[in-house]
């Protein structure tokens, strides 16, 4: 399995507070990984660094077969390289329909001139229908996404993420605020996605992580505390002390 993303020796501090401290992390081409850790462990900052929102003070972030560096690239450029991100709170474009949201996310040329003359092809529309089917929003395509329920918005955002066809999906607490049935569906979507691409899930909910059935990385105070199967890390005394035992 080749490496898709490699983060090594990355540190970042805000006003003297070390949010990320010499963090190293790697993920392969088609792999699912869960990141857990107490509040303030640096989970979100880690995602900010990979997606270009935050510049680290030191360290390397390399990407793909040719090991290009993601540092110094703009957020948009990194997204075009194939890194997709889902935020903790559902952020969809509320004023626009589900279809418009999905079409905007659909993999295509992003330059202003290409977008200006873009008209959805039959193929694109089929893909939108498929995605809507997958996220259970087939009947809501022409509804404004602001009308959707919280859980539906979460799915729409996952759908938009899949539409981007990223090689790496960064998903921040996908199951937050979902009913048990919705959680199950979300798990299925993520597990399915991880067959063809890398998926990193940040999650608090241990039950959810267990269902993902994947390698787990435990973050604490900005660096990796333990890594392995869920059973392996939950048996780790340090992990119990800082995270589970509380």
């Amino acid at each position: 399995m080749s490496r898709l993303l490699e983060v090594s020796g990355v540190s970042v501090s805000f006003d003297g507070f070390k949010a990320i401290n010499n963090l190293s992390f790697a993920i392969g081409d088609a792999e699912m990984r869960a990141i857990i850790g107490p509040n303030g462990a640096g989970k979100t900052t880690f995602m900010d660094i990979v997606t270009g929102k935050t510049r680290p003070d030191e360290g390397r972030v390399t990407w793909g077969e040719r090991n290009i560096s993601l540092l110094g690239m703009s957020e948009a450029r990194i997204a075009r390289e194939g890194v997709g991100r889902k935020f903790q709170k559902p952020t969809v474009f509320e004023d626009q329909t589900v279809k418009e949201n999905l079409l905007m996310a659909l993999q295509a040329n992003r330059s202003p001139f290409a977008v200006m003359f873009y008209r959805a092809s039959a193929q694109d529309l089929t893909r939108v229908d498929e995605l809507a089917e997958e996220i259970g929003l087939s009947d809501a395509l022409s509804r404004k996404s602001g009308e959707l329920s919280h859980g539906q918005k979460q799915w729409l955002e996952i759908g938009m993420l899949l539409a981007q066809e990223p090689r790496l999906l960064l998903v921040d607490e996908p199951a937050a605020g979902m009913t048990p049935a919705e959680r199950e569906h979300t798990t299925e979507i993520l597990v399915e996605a991880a067959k063809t691409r890398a998926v990193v899930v940040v999650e608090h909910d241990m039950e959810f992580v267990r269902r993902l059935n994947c390698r787990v990385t435990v973050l604490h105070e900005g660096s990796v505390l333990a890594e392995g199967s869920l059973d392996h890390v939950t048996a780790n005394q340090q992990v119990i002390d800082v995270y589970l035992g509380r």
Partner: protein
Amino acid sequence: MPNTFLTRTPSNVIFLIVLAVFALGVTVLAEGSGIGFISTSFVKTLGKTLCLALVAVAMDLVWGYTGILSLGHFAFFGLGGYMIGMWLMYARTHGIVVTSMAEAPIPPTESEIVDAIGNQIFGVVGSSEFPLVWAFSDSFAIQLILVVAVPGLLALVFGWLAFRSRVTGVYLSILTQAMTLALALYLFQNDSGLRGNNGLSGLQNLPGLDHVPQAQISIWFFWASAVALALGYLFAAWLVSGKFGSVMRGIRDNEARVRFLGYSVEGYKLFVFTATAMIAGVAGALYYPQAGIINPAEIAPIASIYLAVWVAIGGRGRLYGAAIGAVFVSLVSSWFTGGQAPDLNLGFYTLKWVDWWLIVLGFSFVLVTLFAPKGIGGLVDLWTYRKSPDRHGADLGPDAGALREQEASQ
């Protein structure tokens, strides 16, 4: 029926039909082409109003759709006017000079003619030399290109600097105000090359067309303005109808999210800013020949603020709203400030509208913003039952993206 961007939004078709009916109606009623019910000066006012509607449509693209509150678009409008004004003034003075020199015993040389034109145009600022910016003023074609090129280039450079540093919100508005103020102050100087505070005048006289009465010329310009508005409106409607429009509205509602979708937000903002500056330039180039005069006071910061007020009162985020706002507010403005509105005698105080109009306008702006954020265009929604999704709670503002209070706390 074919499914084009026009037929998908009936408001576009209705707007164009109303505009055509209005233009034909004015033509029939005007002095120069019809029964003479509408005076030439009022035809000019209506023509100018159509130009203002065009720049308002441009403002709606940049503010209502993309969320960039530019308070400097009248600078581009004025620059467009200056560019066409330079040719008008040069060519007309050329005609006058040639006629008057033709009576001299020795025929004048080409350089003598140019010197005499310089004297005529720049005598008022104590100079007779042609400044560098007038290099192409003898060429109608080049000045026409400059009408879009100069505002476009200024917008491109300004926008590139501002958007690249991710200046947004109020700070960007202040920067655009500073830009238009700086430009106005520069042009006020006599040595700026554009006749300082005298500005360019006599623009209503078209070179070589002295025999055509103004009544006729006013109708030509009225139609040119109407066609420009129709084309500008069509372009804007086409732009916002597709994915580009989705991205624009996405940037307005949550630009960080658009970035993570892989769109270069800065590039899009720059595109919209520059394109609308060019549209504003065209509108200005049609406006000032009807006004007859342009001076730096036209691009004072307040002018661009008016533009925002028109769009806000008309209803931003919908193209016809911007056009309605510009037409309605500017016509009512000229009625009140033109001394036509009768004074209101309150017994103890006589309300003179010329003095009080600005205060009325200011209050209506505040009231519209607070109580009817959709503006006049919102009235259409009452009729078509268009509803915004009920998102519960108040807007959290640009930092928290498109979230509303209650969603964020979930």
